[in-house]
Each structure stands twice: as C-alpha cells, then as structure tokens.
C-alpha cells in the first residue's frame, strides 16, 4: 500500500468517555469485525479489564477503509489505556501515530486526563481531531464542552465532530476526517531499517511478541535484526498485523504498524521504546524512544499459605511476561515468611496484579502496606535507596530522607474547591495553580508527596467531589522531608509487614487510626491481644482486643446440624485468609487497613 494512503492514529480520552465504544463502532462500520464477533468492546481483551471497564494493554488494529471518493486507505488504530497509573502508555501509542482522536464526553466535559493526554499529543506534534461523544444522551451539552476544549486546550472546535459511539451516529464523519486531516507517515531519508517497539508481550504460541511501528525502510520475515539498546541480533520469524485477529504477512513497510516475532527468548530482552534495526545494515542512531519508566509504588507480596511460595513466584513470572512494568525480587519478612518485594506503576496497577493472582492463578496473597521509594543519606556519606520500610537505617545513622513528589492536577466543578483544598493541604501539598476552564469547572494544581497520594487520596477526592472530580499526576522531583518509621506491635512484637514510613507530623494521628482499625479487624482469640504503634522504642498508641470469653450456641438440635455445618464452612473460608503472626491470627484485611483512612 502506498504510504500516502496510510493513517496511524490513537484515540485519547478521559476514563469512561467512550474510547473503547468508539473503537468498537469504527471496527464495525469498516466491517473489520462482523456483528456476531462484536462482543462489546472488542479491544479490551482481558477479563479484568472488561470487569473494571478499563484498557490496560494497548493494542493496534489495522482497518481497511474506502473513503467517500472511493480511495482505499489503511488505518492503524492504536488503542491506549486511560488511567492515571498508566498515562505513560499513552505516550507509547502516540509516538507511533500521526494523529489523535480526542474523545470528550458531551455530558461531562474536559477532565484531567483529557487535558493530560491532549497536551501530550500536541507536544508530540500530532494532529488532534476533537470528537464530542454521547450526544444521544439528554444531558449532553456539546456547545459547552466545545468551549471548554477551546479554553483549556486551545484547539479549534468549530469543526468538532459530534457523535454517539453507542448508536454510531456521526462516526462515519470521523473516518472521513482522519483521511482529510491526519497526515500520512512521514517520508524517510534513512536507508536502514528503524522500527519503534511500542509494546511487548508473551504469547504462549508465538513467544515474545513485539508491536512495532516502521519509521524507516521495511522489515521482512527471515531478516536478521538488531535491538539497538542491547546490540543483540535475532532472526525474524513472523510478521503480522491485527485485523483485528492476528494475520501473518511477509513484510511490514514504511509507516506500517504490526507485530514481529524473532528468536528472542527473554521478554526482558525486548524493551518497550527500543529501536529495531537491521543486523547487517544497522542504522547509526536509534529513534527517540520513551523514558524507561520506573515503578513508583512498592509493596511486599506474600502467599497466605507459605507452601505456595513457589507458585507465587511462577505466577509473578507469568504476569511479568505481559507486563514489563512490574518488578519483583525475593524478600523475607519475619511475620510473613518468604515473599517478594514488588514494584508497580501505581496503586491501581498493584490492585490489578493482586487480583490477577487470585483470579487467574487461584493464589491468595497478602500485600504489605505500599510504600514509595526513599533516598536516604546516611551520616557516613553513604546514599541508599529504600523501597521497604524495614530497610530504613537506624535513626541515629540518618542524615536526611528524601521522598518523591508528584504534581497532581484535579479537575472539578467549582463547588468542591473547598474540600479539595483542605484535602491537599492536609496531605502536605503545596498549591501551584488554580485555573478556571469554564464558569463551572476549574483545574487545581498541587505538588504533594507521592506517599500521601497513594494513601487513600484518590478515594477521598472521589468522595469529596461526589465522583465529579478527575485527577492526573506526574512525578516532579524528590525533596527532603521529616520522615519517621512507624512500627506496629502485636502482643509486644513488631510485625515487620505492618511497618510504614510517614511524616512525623502525621504519626500520632496515623498511629491511632491504625491501631483502632486493627482492633476491629483482628478477631478475638483465647488471650488478650495488645496492638501498639511505636516510633523507635516509644509507644504512641495502644488498643486491645479482649480475650474471647463467650462463644457458644445455646440450643442445638437435629436441624441445626445443617446450619452449623454451613457456618463452619464459612469460618473455614475466612480462616484461609488469616495469617498467623506469632500466636495471633491476623486476617488479610489488616494488612490493607493501613491504606484506608476513617471516613
């Protein structure tokens, strides 16, 4: 196909504004999938995604389109995820595109990720097509939304396309607009192959799969290629496209998007953002890749039943095959035994992984309280990285602790401003900016410690704004803070898995909050259980779970056997989720309790 007739684009949108629905409609209208194949949301392919309604893995689809004036085009639609944890993935897809369809919900207007993603696309020099979605809804207000887009992003909306991804109304106009305003892939002056690795994953039949965009020359099956970051050579086995099902082809040409499999054994050898070139005629310079993204949130993951350590290890390995952003390393905890220190992009990422372990691998695991990565400068001049509270050096050895900060932007109707300001201030935030994007909506920007943000921040934002506020964040830098380690003691013994690092100012409040919560969660046992919180050797909060004194059914006759048996089964289920720490049984929730605050 002629380069001029190729269009590479992404759809960008705030969560739930209808990106997946629109992608489905486009596939349907262009007959890329038949109605029968069209289970809703074709591109969201993992179970969990379908349940949570979010897209985690980006995926590219090739679409054949015949325009109104009867020209044939190839569209490569690159689906992008839409959650704060994963905003970096958006940039991967955008880098492979020449244009972006910006979908905005006509009932909601511009939200945090609308803006974040639109700016990203504009920065990369992409053509942006504004699309106002959900016009079938009575509450839709395209005029207001267009004004918001113009005011906040600064793109002309006089030609914005009004659609309903649900009914399909207007979607055809998007296709025509893609042909008209998105430029074809640029011409290449380089004679050597260069392809950008947009995504990688592991397929049980094909092995390591690379999703690539060809920027220079072309790539053929059997060709010897080189990955420029490692300088390792491989031979191309399969080339293909998703149409939307995988289909093998023998060549990917300039401007095209497709997948490559080669003799690559390890998924870790295939880095997202890397450049593929020819082994025999290598290019001089790699393409501009993406930042190597680093996990920002860490926690320990332990099997509830320590016999399942090996299984946890294998399951994490399998998950990591498709998720290059997760990091894990073996560690041990006095309380929980053998497990792994895992790094995630964010809390949502962590939850998804935990859920996959349970659902796909049938593994119950305990996650210790999440932590960010601290830089500790010791008095002896040594600098260490701490991603586990228990590795924090003794207080007298510490010169200072640096913690990562993020810039958070909150998009909210103005009536919630007060509540949001209070929240940000209470989280050690420093206000950076307030901007009105319309009479009703504003953007509030704060810089605050990442550790404060992973601690129940987003839930608070949602409850303060009744769900109307949206949020985006990006790392800013690290700064020195007055931090201390808070330990939790159960019957006098420190439970290492419950320790966490917090700001000194918040320590008393957090200590009280957590001990109270643990008192409610820990079931009564034969003996009294003391729950204490301490900084060093100083106890700053204490609660007790009274010993079990009475637990007996007064009456028990024939029919009660069935009833009791059911009760027993239920207790047994609950027990599976308990962990013995010393001689105290602690339910799984205890480890999560650290995360949430009282309402």
């Amino acid at each position, binding site marked *: 196909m002629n380069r001029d007739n190729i269009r590479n684009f992404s759809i960008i949108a705030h969560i739930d504004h209808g990106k997946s629905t629109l992608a489905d409609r486009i596939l349907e209208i262009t007959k890329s999938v038949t109605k029968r194949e069209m289970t809703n949301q074709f591109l969201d392919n993992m179970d969990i995604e379908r349940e949570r309604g979010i897209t985690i893995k980006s995926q590219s689809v090739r679409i054949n389109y015949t325009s109104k004036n009867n020209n044939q085009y190839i569209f490569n639609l690159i689906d992008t995820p839409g959650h704060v944890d994963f905003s970096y993935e958006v940039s991967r897809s955008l880098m492979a595109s020449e244009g972006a369809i910006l979908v905005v919900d006509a009932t909601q207007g511009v939200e945090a990720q609308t803006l974040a993603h639109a700016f990203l696309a504009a920065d990369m020099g992409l053509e942006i097509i504004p699309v106002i979605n959900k016009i079938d809804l009575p509450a839709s207000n395209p005029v207001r939304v267009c004004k918001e887009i113009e005011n906040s992003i600064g793109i002309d909306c006089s030609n914005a396309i009004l659609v309903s991804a649900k009914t399909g109304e207007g979607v055809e106009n998007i296709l025509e607009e893609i042909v008209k305003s998105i430029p074809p892939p640029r011409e290449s002056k380089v004679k050597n192959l260069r392809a950008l690795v947009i995504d990688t994953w592991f397929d049980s039949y094909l092995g390591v799969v690379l999703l690539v965009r060809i920027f220079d020359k072309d790539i053929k099956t059997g060709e010897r290629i080189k990955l420029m970051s490692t300088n390792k050579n491989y031979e191309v086995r399969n080339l293909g496209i998703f149409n939307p099902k995988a289909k093998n082809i023998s060549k990917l040409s300039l401007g095209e998007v497709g997948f490559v499999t080669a003799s690559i054994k390890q998924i870790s050898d295939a880095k997202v953002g890397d450049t593929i070139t020819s082994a025999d005629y290598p290019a001089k310079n790699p393409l501009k890749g993406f930042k190597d993204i680093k996990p920002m949130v860490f926690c320990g993951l332990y099997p509830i039943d320590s016999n399942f350590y090996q299984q946890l290890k294998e399951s994490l390995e399998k998950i990591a095959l498709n998720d290059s952003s997760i990091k894990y390393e073996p560690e041990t905890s006095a309380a929980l035994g053998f497990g792994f220190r895992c790094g995630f992009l964010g809390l949502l990422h962590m939850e998804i992984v935990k859920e996959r372990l349970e659902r796909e691998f049938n593994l119950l695991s305990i996650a210790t309280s999440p932590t960010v990565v601290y830089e500790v400068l010791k008095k002896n001049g040594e600098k260490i990285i701490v991603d586990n509270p228990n590795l924090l050096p003794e207080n007298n050895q510490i010169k200072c602790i640096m913690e990562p900060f993020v810039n958070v932007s909150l998009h909210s109707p103005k009536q919630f401003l007060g509540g949001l300001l209070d929240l940000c201030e209470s989280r050690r935030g420093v206000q950076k900016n307030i901007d009105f994007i319309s009479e009703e909506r504003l953007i509030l920007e704060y810089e605050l410690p990442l550790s404060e943000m992973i601690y129940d921040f987003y839930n608070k934002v949602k409850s303060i704004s009744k769900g109307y506020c949206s949020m985006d964040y990006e790392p800013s830098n690290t700064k020195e803070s007055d931090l201390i380690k808070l330990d939790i003691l159960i019957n006098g013994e420190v439970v290492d898995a419950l320790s966490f690092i917090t700001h000194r100012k918040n320590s008393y409040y957090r200590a009280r909050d957590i001990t109270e919560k643990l008192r409610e969660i820990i079931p009564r046992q*034969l003996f009294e259980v003391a729950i204490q919180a301490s900084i060093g050797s100083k106890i700053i909060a204490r609660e007790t779970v009274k010993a*079990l004194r*009475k637990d007996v059914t007064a009456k028990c006759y*024939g029919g009660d*056997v069935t009833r*009791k048996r059911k009760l027993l089964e239920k207790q047994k289920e609950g027990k599976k989720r308990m962990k013995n720490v010393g001689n105290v049984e602690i339910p799984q929730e205890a480890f999560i309790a650290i995360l949430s605050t009282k309402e």
Partner: protein
Amino acid sequence: MTNKFGIYIHIPFCTTICPYCNFNVYPQKIAQYDVLANCLLSELEKNLTYFGNKELASIHFGGGTPSLLPIKYMEKILTMILKNSIASHDCEITIEINPYEYEMQDVDSLYDLGFNRFSIGIQSFDDVKLKYLGRDSSRRSNILFAEKISNSKIKNINFDLIFGIQDETLDTWERDIKFVSNFDINHVSTYFLTIEESTPFWNKKLRGEIIDFSEDLYIKMVESTINILRKNKIYRYEISNFCRESFESKHNMTYWSNGSYLGIGPGAYSSYVDIENKIYQRWTNPRSPKAYFNFLNENSVSEDKVLNSFDTREYVKDSFMMGLRLTNGINIKQLKKIREFSLNQGTLDELNDEDLILSNLSNIKLTQKGFNIADYIIFKLIESINFKVA
C-alpha cells in the same frame, strides 16, 4: 446407639408467636389440624419402614405447641407408630407443653394416652421477664401449673428456662433457678436468650434497644446455674441441659450422639445412620405447612425432599459438632473405627494447657471453662482433624 432411632413430630402452630422465636411456627388461626394429621399419618406410614431394622427409643412431639393437636389425632399417630415399629420397653414419649390455662386439662389425658415425659415451657417465674418475653403466662399461672404437674402421677418432667434477657441481673436469674427446687422434677433446660434473625427481637437489636449481653455476667449465671442445681442433685450433661442421674432426655441424646431419627411434619429434619453399611443420610421436609401439604398430596414420595448423602468424614465431623456439647464428650476410639483420623497434637495441647478440654486417647470433653466458648473450640477441633486417605 446406631441400632436405635427416635421419631420427632412437628406441630408448627402456636396461639401467639413469641417475639424471640424463630422456630418453624405459624399462627394457630391458619392451622388445619385434620389435614396436618392426615399428612403426618401418611408420612409415618411411608417412612417408618425405612427405619424398620432399628428399635424405637423415643418419640417427641415438638413445636410450636404440639398439645394444640386434637387428642384423637394424637392417638391415631401413636397407634400408627407402635403398629409399624418395634418400640423398646422403656420408649420415651415426650410432649412439649406451654403452661397456659387451656393446657391444664390436657395433661392427664395425654398421660393416659401413653406420654411419659412432659417438657414445660416455664421460661421464668418472674413477671417482668415473662412480660418482656411476650409470654401468655405469669408467675402465678406458672406456679399453679408447675405445682399441678409435679404433684401428679407424672414423674418425668422438664422445665425450660430462659436467661440473659436485657437488663437481667444475676440475682433475678438465681431466684428463677432456685425456685425450681420447689418442684419435684428431674430435668431442667436453661437457654441463654439468642437474638435470632428475622424476629421482632432482632429488629430491636438493630434499633439498638437490645445490646450484647455482658459476657462476664453470662459466665457467672452459668456458674450459678450449675452450683444451685447441683445442690438439688441435678447435673449438667449438655451445654444447656441438666438432669438427675440417668434422666437425660433420650430423644435429645440421639441428636447429640449423632444417631438416627425420623422427623415428621413441616420442616422436620431426619437423619439415617447405618455404620455397618457406611450410610449417612440427612433430609428435610418442605418448611411451610402449605408446601408440606402439597408435597405429600402430590404423592411425590421422598424424591422431593432435600436428601443428602454424606461420607464417613462428614459423619465424624458432625459427631464432633454435636457430641462435644455433652459433658461426657465424644468417644474418639469408636469414631476412629468408623473412619481413621488423627487430631493435630498442637491444637490438643493448646486447648489442654488452657484448661479448655480434657482429652486422652479415647475421649475428648470440654471443661466448664471450655463450654463458655464451645463453638470456638469445636471449630478448632474439627479443623484439626486429619483424615487418613480411605
């Protein structure tokens, strides 16, 4: 035990429904005793043969208020049972009686009919308590009834008492339990008031009008009960049951020793145990009278019942569940003959050390301290069973 069985007959009607009761009971005004009696009879006729190889050790008319069933039906039922089974010479035939006015005259005729054990729902001799419990009786009527029955020819009598109602003091309860010694009876059941789901009391609890009863006070009350009744030569043999030597309720002992019983009537449960042939079955009748009537009229025999067959592992577990409620506990050796198993020594040691159980190679029983947390301990012990692969 396994070559014997008991029969339970459920009469699911009461003149008024007590606000704490969640038994399978309905207001008397919807009762059709003739229909019910026919159903009971046909059910008996059908099912008794199933227990044909076992000796009948007890018959229990429960409810509800079983004495509301007209006496002519009672007679037919007893005749039917005795005709179709081998009753032991000392077969215990019990009926539950509410100490209300209209029950008085019945007692004698029931005795003449063959009933030899009477279980009286006294609940309390305290007017405040009785009123709180919504009972149709008073201290005075309860005393009159108790006097009358204990002075009659009837020797085998039980009183049901309830304790642990909101604001009840140790003193109030001790007075109730001491008052029992005024009467010549040989069995007492003392039930701690349980706030059961979907009862008016449950709603009270949800509204905060009933708060959890003090656990320490509960323990004191149980201690008092044991001590006071002991002076009367009435001893605890199950968590809530006390009797003079060898006057245990045979029928209830069948439940607690996980034996066989045939339940007749709406919602009645049955259990069939045949150790030799490794048969362990339980089934349930439809719960509402209407569903029960339909079920019998459609002549759909036993297929429609919820019948469950279990393996010997379940039998052992259920035997723990019920048997550990008895002061004599369970016979491990015997149970192991049915199915080999071992118990986690750590659990046993811990419970022994805490003075919660007494165990040796052939027997486990809960201590008085252990009974206070019997549910917890029984769960722990069942959890610790390790079955040998069959």
